[in-house]
């Protein structure tokens, strides 16, 4: 590649799509800067044709005129990776929003790009590699403590072949830009390594071997962990109409999931929702580490009023950061809300490029882009032998709440778990509004095969309950047509058992401080009771008796959900419920 960087001038403009006449050598998807009115606006090459290139600008383009200068950087859109990512809030191009606010006030000015990582902060570095060690891409060189993570400093992922460590800094405090090691490769070339490295956002980071995702990620949300579990390193999606509680569900999972790092990508949704995380997380305790929730969280925020073009990159920036942590052997969870807005950003750009549209005007490559994104999830064993995982959960906002639309369908084709939220359940105030009649998880059977006896018992109850929910639904439909008189008492009991399981286990009150999260042990204890109830053959005198019995039993168990676990009160109550069931 020539060291001369290409230059160009604006020849045409429509919205944020520019036609640039250039000279020199340029790359597809390289970053460009368009200088207009004293500002440099960041953009990306998306089409090359002869001496003309199409460039999408990530910011508002008002004021651009014919002949404005464009500078090509020959670098792809990259993410800066190093200590200091956690606790941060970035926009879709990895600009730190809090710092921008400090310098620019209330509004987001265009053409302002700040360093994503704190340049002056000193980190306590401890070397892992020694002089003379042979290393390669992603080998550990050292570690620094970052918030809740033992943050590994690694050989840059793009490093080719083996190298010798010819110098490494002793333990001490360094800024991210200080050279902490020198490596000499086989040809004798010396590379200086700092604590920070850049990686192109659209390429996955995957140094090591991929493993099969067979461990469960506990979210402490019962309806997920029970019938529709998610694997560490797996994928799930939560489509639902507006008002069904997608965002509340995602917030719940981001708070309570048993993972080490959470990356929240707020992609084209309400700014108010991000504000809730921003103002809440620094004060909430993380039960796993005893530190604050914000300490394990990084937020990528490109809300609906921020530039649409940067919405596309926000997903990739978030995923790259998540992969970076996975590479150091950390369990990571990425939550994207909402992938539909991301797809719409693709659609807008595709329309401007005059590509032949597919279904609902989405580009033909929509499905492959979605597949590519979810495929970046997975379990990875790195060269040092540590295992990390990246679990991806994407919210989908289907138009009109109709799951037949292209984004939902393309997503369902590639995810391992489908948590479908329905209007019926949210209208009936049954929260979380995940519909047990339509949702599925491919991981349940997978966990069963490898499970210990406790987990097998748990899954057995869940499966039995699921079958009763399905059967109960049929019976319920029948009753709504022919009335209660039209069904047998046995059918009625099945229906009531389904309702009972639904109300005490599947539904969960996110606004109650105890019920909001239910850990594995508590869930197991609960399923034990549920299992006894579902398996027991009751003999009731009348349907009214049956209804009364189940209503009061449900109420008792719901009250139990509000009592703190392992208190005497909890144990007493649980025993008394079990006695009632056995005595009935």
């Amino acid at each position: 590649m020539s060291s001369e960087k290409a230059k160009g001038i604006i020849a045409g403009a429509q919205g944020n799509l520019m036609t640039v006449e250039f000279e020199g050598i340029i790359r597809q998807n390289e970053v460009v800067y368009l200088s207009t009115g004293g500002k440099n606006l960041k953009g990306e090459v998306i089409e090359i044709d002869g001496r003309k290139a199409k460039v999408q600008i990530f910011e508002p383009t008002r004021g651009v005129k014919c002949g404005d200068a464009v500078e090509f950087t020959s670098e792809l859109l990259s993410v800066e990776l190093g200590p200091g990512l956690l606790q941060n809030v970035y926009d879709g191009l990895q600009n730190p929003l809090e710092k921008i606010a400090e310098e620019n006030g209330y509004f987001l000015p265009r053409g302002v790009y700040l360093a994503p990582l704190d340049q002056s902060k000193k980190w306590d570095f401890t070397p892992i590699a020694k002089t003379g060690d042979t290393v390669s891409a992603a080998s550990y060189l050292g570690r620094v403590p970052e918030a809740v993570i033992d943050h590994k400093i690694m050989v840059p992922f793009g490093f080719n072949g083996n190298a010798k460590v010819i110098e490494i800094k002793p333990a001490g405090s360094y800024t991210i830009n200080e050279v902490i090691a020198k490596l000499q490769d086989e040809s004798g070339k010396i590379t200086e390594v700092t604590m920070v490295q850049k990686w192109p956002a659209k390429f996955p980071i995957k140094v090591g071997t991929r493993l099969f995702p067979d461990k469960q990620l506990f979210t402490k949300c019962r309806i997920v962990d029970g019938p529709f579990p998610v694997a560490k390193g797996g994928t799930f999606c939560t489509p639902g109409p507006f008002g069904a509680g997608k965002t509340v569900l995602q917030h719940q999972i981001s708070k309570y999931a048993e993972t080490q790092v959470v990356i929240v990508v707020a992609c084209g949704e309400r700014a108010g929702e991000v504000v809730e995380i921003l103002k809440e997380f620094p004060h909430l305790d993380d039960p796993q580490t005893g530190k604050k929730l914000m300490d394990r969280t990084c937020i990528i925020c490109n809300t609906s009023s921020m530039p649409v073009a940067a919405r596309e990159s926000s997903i990739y920036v978030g995923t790259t950061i998540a992969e970076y942590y996975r590479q150091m052997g950390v369990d990571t969870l990425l939550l994207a809300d909402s992938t539909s807005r991301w797809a719409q950003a693709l659609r807008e750009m595709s329309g401007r490029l005059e590509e032949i549209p597919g279904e609902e005007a989405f580009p033909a490559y929509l499905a492959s882009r979605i597949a590519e994104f979810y495929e970046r999830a997975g379990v990875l064993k790195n060269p040092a032998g540590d295992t990390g995982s990246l679990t991806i959960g994407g919210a989908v906002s289907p138009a009109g709440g109709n799951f037949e639309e292209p984004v939902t369908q393309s997503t369902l084709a590639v995810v391992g778990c489908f948590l479908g939220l329905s209007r019926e359940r949210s209208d009936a105030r049954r929260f979380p509004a995940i519909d047990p009649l339509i949702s599925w998880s491919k991981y349940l059977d997978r966990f069963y095969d490898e499970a210990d006896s406790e987990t097998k018992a748990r899954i057995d109850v869940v499966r039995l309950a699921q079958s009763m929910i399905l059967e109960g639904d049929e019976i319920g439909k029948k009753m709504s047509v022919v009335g209660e008189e039209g069904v047998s008492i046995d059918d009625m009991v099945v229906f009531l058992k389904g309702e009972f399981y639904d109300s005490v286990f599947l539904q969960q009150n996110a606004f109650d401080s105890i019920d909001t999260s239910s850990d594995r042990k508590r869930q197991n204890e609960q399923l034990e009771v549920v299992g006894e109830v579902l398996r027991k053959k009751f003999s009731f005198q009348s349907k009214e008796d049956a209804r009364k019995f189940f209503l009061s039993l449900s109420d008792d168990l719901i009250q139990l959900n509000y009592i703190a676990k392992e208190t005497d009160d909890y144990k007493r109550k649980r025993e008394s419920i079990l006695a009632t069931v056995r005595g009935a």
Partner: protein
Amino acid sequence: MIKTYNSIEKVKGSIAQVRAEGVKLGELAEIKLRDGRSTLAEVISFSGDKVNLQIYRGTRGVSTGDQTRFLSKPMQVAFGDSLLGRVFNGAGEPVDGGAQVAEEKVEIGGPSFNPSKRIVPKRMIKTNIPMIDMFNTLVRSQKIPIFSIPGEPYNELLARIASQTDADVIVLGGMGLKFDDYEFFYRYFTKTGAMEKTTMFIHTASDPVVECILVPDMALAVAEQFAVKDKNVLVLLTDMTSFADAQKEISISMEMVPSNRGYPGSLYSDLASRYEKAVDIDGSGSITVIAVTTMPGDDVTHPVPDNTGYITEGQFYLHNGAIDPFGSLSRLKQQVMGKVTRKDHGDLANAMIRLYADAKKAKDRESMGFRLSEWDRKLIKYAVMFERDLMDLSVNLDIEEQLDLGWKILSECFAKNEVGLKAEWIEKYGKWK
């Protein structure tokens, strides 16, 4: 130096093409028509020296020999206290017969607010309407639409909310309004005295479609200026479906591929970038947006209400002249219920809605001719009182009075142990003798 160009090469839809050099995206131009009129236009794209202009007053009557003058500035709106009490059209020209406003000018459609400078909203807006204050509490900086079908009294509701709140400034953006509607707002605000703190941007159905798109931007740009100057601003937008239809009309005439029922793929972003101007600024004023979205065919899955629902923080459903207690929702009510308002507020409101849902079923049973139980009769009595004393839009009570009235209705219809409320609240606020 301002250059003048004497030829228009192409006219299509609301777009005209001129050959010109050095023009900027978003720049304004003035076109002098043959008949002596002139219109503003905006540069929406260019390719080499071919410049596409979107003509605000429409292309009807534009000739190939008309003069185009580029003004080297983007669309701006005048801003200042003298805006209050005035009425403008979508291009920012006064239509109330008053003088031009010659104060500072601000760009419309400015940069978006930094999310990290927002605060969690927790200041209630009192409207004295029970279905809002008590059941779907409005919070400062909320963005919320009124979903309605044509024919419902949505403009009356909007006007009433506006005049009864304590907002410092009201900005009304009217899109596709009938003359009668505009006149109604003007008279209502004048009568209630609210006009003194109101600015109106009005696009009537007979005005050019491009101006319709400008209305929300104008209204929100003005609102934003007031908000950073410490004012609590209430923005009323009616009707956003007309705005979306204008977007559709223009994007189709520009040969953009439509995504759903002819609307452009950018509909969500177009709506969101306007609604998201609602904000509560840390240490300064706020913008609250109440909009009207008429639902074609009462279909909430229609692209406009559907996309709106994903953007806004809840919705008021206007049905048969009343705010529907079931479909309506305020996503921010948890921030104030029982925190800013009385402690029993949340529980009481939930219990009353739950009972009203049961009462609806009892009414169904009654209309189907089933035999009614004692409980059914109680519920039906309750439904009648609930609809008459709380749901009716003419009810005008302070929130404390609303809560007391709620307790009174419960005590007249039910026994203490039938309402499913905490004993503590019943003890403290109940009206049972």
